């Protein structure tokens, strides 16, 4: 059914708090590196897709159009997709359906974010994601919805902050081996628990930073993949689901929309036992508890069980199910859309044995990347295999 689609090249920029480069330049650097990594040139690319999150960060309306030249789209079919924070992983699904349709043979997937343009701080831009009548007059803060969700999750399953903090420790330490990392640091649980309380139960070191950065992948059909590289990484399954916008009507303790997206992706990939058939996972981790929340949504463990896996070391790089070996958003940085695609790039490098110091020794053959976004609402999942 449809054509097989492979990832054949990847590139990214450093993730920094504020980049000198414009959004166009960041996109260009990532795209150029991705092309160079597989010896392809821009004229061999049939179509370009771009993922980037709120236009408000850059203060540019129709940001997709503004970035199109940096992303290599001049004179080409070009589209920008948008599902909030889920965009990074979704853009791979977008590239996938371009090629699986048979109309397009090669696709450049670019994700870019430049959050530093917004003054005084990008966080303030998030005011505008809330409902303009029933929520914005209360001056909500992005931290609120994470804190509300973290509290509900902890309360429902009786989880401890000490266990959740282990995720931040793992990821920030993992990121020390990532050349593009923004805030890699050798931290301990004590550091996390002593950090400033932002919106209880969320503390400063539980949170990923605001960042600028870009990532790009090259996707091709099967025939071309075999010509370009002897190690194509196949897009085996894609899934996405968007829950109701009435988030206050939902129980935030479980991300059912991640499960829906995962089911769609696993079905396509022929996965029936995710816990054992997936060898490496990159769930979205803008906050430490989110990695756990999403591991459960991805059905890598039962509800409320993810913290125990972390405590037991299962999710370490040398554990049974390495999770966020890249260092994730907590360690590498969170330029929203680019962060999601960074996770897929990580799987690409891990499966090919090119992850350098971050390489998982066990030779993973199959990985899952997942991103999340909107008002605790969207799950986007991609399964890749070699």
């Amino acid at each position, binding site marked *: 059914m449809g054509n097989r689609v492979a990832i054949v090249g990847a590139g990214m920029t450093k993730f920094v708090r*504020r980049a000198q480069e414009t959004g166009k330049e960041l996109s260009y*650097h990532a795209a150029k590196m991705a092309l160079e990594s597989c010896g392809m040139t821009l004229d*061999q690319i049939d179509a370009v897709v771009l993922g980037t999150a709120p236009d408000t960060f850059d203060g540019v309306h129709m940001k997709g159009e503004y970035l199109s030249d940096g992303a290599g789209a001049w004179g080409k079919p070009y589209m920008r997709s948008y599902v909030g924070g889920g965009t990074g992983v979704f853009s791979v699904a977008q590239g996938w359906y371009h090629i699986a349709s*048979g109309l397009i043979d090669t696709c450049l997937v670019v994700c870019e974010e430049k959050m530093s343009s917004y003054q005084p701080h990008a966080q303030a831009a998030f005011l505008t994601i809330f409902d*303009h009548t029933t929520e914005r*007059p209360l001056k909500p803060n992005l931290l609120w919805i994470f804190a*509300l969700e973290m509290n509900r999750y902890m309360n429902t399953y009786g989880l401890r902050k000490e266990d959740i903090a282990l995720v931040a420790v793992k990821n920030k330490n993992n990121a020390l081996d990532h050349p593009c990392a923004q805030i890699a640091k050798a931290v301990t649980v004590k550091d996390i628990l002593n950090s400033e309380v932002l919106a*209880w139960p969320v503390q400063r070191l539980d949170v990923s930073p605001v960042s600028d950065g870009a990532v790009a992948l090259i996707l091709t059909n099967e025939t071309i993949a075999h010509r370009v590289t002897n190690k194509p990484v196949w897009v085996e399954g894609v899934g996405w689901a968007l829950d109701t916008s009435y988030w206050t009507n939902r129980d935030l303790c479980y991300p059912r929309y991640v499960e829906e997206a995962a089911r769609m992706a696993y079905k396509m990939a022929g996965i029936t036992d995710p816990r054992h058939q997936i060898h490496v996972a990159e769930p979205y981790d803008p906050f430490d508890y989110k990695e756990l929340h999403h591991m459960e949504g991805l059905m890598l463990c039962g509800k409320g069980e993810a913290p125990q896996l972390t405590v037991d070391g299962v999710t370490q790089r040398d554990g049974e199910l390495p999770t966020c070996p890249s260092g994730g958003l907590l360690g590498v940085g969170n330029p929203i859309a680019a962060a999601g695609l960074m996770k897929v790039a990580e799987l690409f490098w891990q499966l090919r044995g090119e992850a350098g110091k971050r390489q998982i020794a066990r030779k993973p053959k199959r990985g899952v990347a997942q991103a999340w976004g909107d008002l605790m609402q969207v799950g986007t999942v991609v399964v890749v295999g070699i």
Partner: protein
Amino acid sequence: MKKSNIKNQSSSEGREVRIEHKKSLSPHYSLLTTKFQGVGLSDDDIKKGKVCTTHWIGDTKYAWDQGIAIGKYLEGLKHGKILGVECHKCGRKMVPPRMFCEWCFKTIDGWVELFDTGVVNTFSLCYVTWDVKRVKEPQIPAVIEIDGASKGMGIMHLLGEVNPKKVYIGMKVKAVWKSEKEREGAITDILYWKPIK
């Protein structure tokens, strides 16, 4: 590098694709030695004018039509009432109101008056404002399940008149309203929710 015209047999459109000969990782390219781009700037670089900057304050103002569902909800708030809607197919009583049941995909069947009391579903103690200013006394946002609506039907609002350390999930609360003449038909007609003793 030689380029050859190779018919792409997997494309049903029969287009030609030019692609180079087979290779593994391009010999001159290695991730281990590659230089990642991206120049980080500090606050100082900008304040001291080491880089050029431009500034823009947008003129972006909106006035949103509330429509039937939220329009009536706001009117209810002005009169000190919390209104919800019901769907007879799934039996849910919903708040905030909407003209359609999103699960059954049909128009709602009627309006119900709910209570101005509820139960805290989840909450937080927030020490940072929306525009990133630190505050001593925390704001207490919460999702409050409204009495009279179906289980789990909550709205977001603030808690007040409560010791932050004493807030818990499951706490019963009641709305504290603005005075009648101060109400304008907005979610802020409810000042906050306080615990019911």
